[in-house]
């Protein structure tokens, strides 16, 4: 069951529902009465958030458009630039889905900059990605998700890491009516390294669900996760992180952190960190905190002359900044920082 299957078949029974424990906080079956008609081809609306950082592969309403050449004439896989994947929704009450398999050859290093850009209203969008990292391949994936307030979207990435592969990910989202960004990683090869970070910055009635599953099947794997959230108004943030260490996956080192700020009384955060450990010789830890801004720190900043709203914005930005600072690619880091500053300026 998945949103993608439901869109392709038009069958609402294919939608994930809260009867599935993994979807209890992001129930699509209870929300969607019928699958809307397929989206038509539509026009692209301006440059994406990663403009200038590499050639883009463009998908508008589920259809691949054209390789967008950057100024240097590089396409997505050209030299120098990052691989930019733009998933644009420009639709009114329709639905669309994309499925994209990506294979990364042994020993290669790739930066994948993925943007979800929403226009129009009330659309259903599904993005399914496969990341197949062959031996020693390194990928840094950065996702900036900007859907419209009444959209329902699901992004699911399956990541398979061969021996010695390295996968670093940062997902930043402002949510939607209901939105899920899910990443499932398996380490069948030994010695794979994963950093998987995220931040959700939600206001109004938006909903974002960051779900990750990491399965360590090989020895000497590492996973490091840091997810942060800021919610206000009646927004709802969800973090589900599961790390499975299979029998025999010895010397696995896995750490997961999730920290959220709730800035309004009616905002909500649900968190479910899970460590399922079937091996003996492992190091695993998780930390989870949910709270408000430190009022003593706010007073301190105000005593120095910084107005209340500016002090709150500064501390909130700093809170999220820890996630952004971990982005390796400089251009993406700047784009992410600008994106977050724009969304947090109103606090």
């Amino acid at each position, binding site marked *: 069951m998945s949103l993608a299957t439901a869109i392709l078949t038009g069958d609402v029974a294919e939608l994930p529902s809260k009867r599935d424990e993994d979807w209890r906080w992001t129930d699509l079956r209870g929300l969607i009465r019928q699958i809307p008609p397929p989206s038509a081809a539509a026009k692209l609306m301006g440059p994406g958030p990663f403009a200038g950082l590499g050639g883009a592969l463009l998908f508008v309403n589920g259809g691949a458009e054209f390789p967008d050449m950057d100024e240097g004439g590089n396409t997505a896989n050209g030299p120098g630039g990052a691989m930019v994947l733009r998933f644009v929704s420009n639709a009114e009450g329709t639905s669309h889905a994309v499925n994209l398999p990506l294979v990364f050859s042994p020993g290669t290093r790739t930066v994948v900059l993925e943007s979800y850009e929403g226009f129009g209203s009330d659309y259903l969008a599904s993005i399914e990605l496969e990341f197949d990292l062959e031996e020693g391949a390194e990928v840094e994936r950065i996702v900036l998700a900007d859907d419209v307030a009444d959209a329902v979207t699901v992004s699911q990435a399956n990541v398979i890491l061969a021996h010695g592969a390295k996968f670093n990910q940062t997902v930043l989202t402002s949510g939607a009516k209901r939105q899920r960004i899910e990443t499932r990683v398996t380490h069948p090869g030994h010695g794979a390294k994963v950093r998987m970070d995220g931040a959700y910055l939600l206001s109004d009635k938006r909903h974002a669900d960051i779900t990750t599953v990491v399965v360590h099947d090989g020895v000497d794997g590492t996973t490091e996760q840091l997810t942060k959230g800021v919610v206000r108004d009646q927004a709802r943030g969800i973090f589900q992180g599961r790390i499975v260490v299979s029998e025999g996956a010895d010397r696995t080192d896995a750490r997961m952190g999730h920290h959220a700020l709730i800035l309004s009384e009616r905002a909500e955060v649900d968190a479910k960190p899970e460590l399922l450990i079937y091996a003996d010789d492992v190091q695993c830890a998780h930390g989870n905190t949910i709270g408000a801004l430190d009022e003593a*720190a706010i*007073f301190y*900043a105000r*005593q*120095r002359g910084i107005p209340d709203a500016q002090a709150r914005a500064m501390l909130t930005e700093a809170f999220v900044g820890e996630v952004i600072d971990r982005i390796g690619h400089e251009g993406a880091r700047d784009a992410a920082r600008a994106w977050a500053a724009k969304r947090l300026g109103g606090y």
Partner: protein
Amino acid sequence: MLSIQNLHATVGGTEILKGLSLEVPAGEVHAIMGPNGAGKSTLSYVLTGRDGYEVTKGSATLDGEDLLALEPNERAAKGVFLSFQYPLEIPGVPALTFVRTALNAQRKARGEPEVTAPEFLKLAREKAAGLKMDFDMLKRPLNVGFSGGEKKRMEILQMAILSPRFAILDETDSGLDIDALRIVSEGVNAMRGPDRAMLVITHYQRLLEYIRPDRVHVLAGGRIVASGGPELALELEREGYDKYARAAA
């Protein structure tokens, strides 16, 4: 400069300040000493406008302007500075960024042009050198992982950069070793001038050997119960607060 008249203030419904009156003229440094629980820190928070410190009676003015009607950041822009007894840690915000944001917010509130990044760096370098601080420390998140002494030094550095008209130093000596105390005191003394006044809150006479006050006041039971010259601090050191605490009770 600062004028406090019959100030009453409560914290959580309990009256802590009970009719405190105090005048600190421009150009002077006054010390406030007193036993634990006398209301010294309450006074500093009331003057700077911290939430939860409710003024029920009396007034506090700076050059005739009602401080109590202003927001904490507005008071700062008018030139009120508090060196905190326990400076806060601000994760994720480099000290330089924090102080520059504060300085420019104050300047903006006063209708002055913002300080440019190069101007600010020059100012910060100069003041940090004066306090014998490693400039690289200013690139770290403010006070995060700093020792008690480093935090106090950072308070005085902020004071030097923000250049307030009226500064309250709340137990700036606590957590400082002798060398740091001397350096910090020199930093404070360098800021003494005819247009500036300071209120130094301390338990101990030691700090006052370095920062010589013009007047010493004893705060006990929420009021100033005695005032005198610097010699009063020596007397307190010898004889303790007992007789004042009894008088206040």
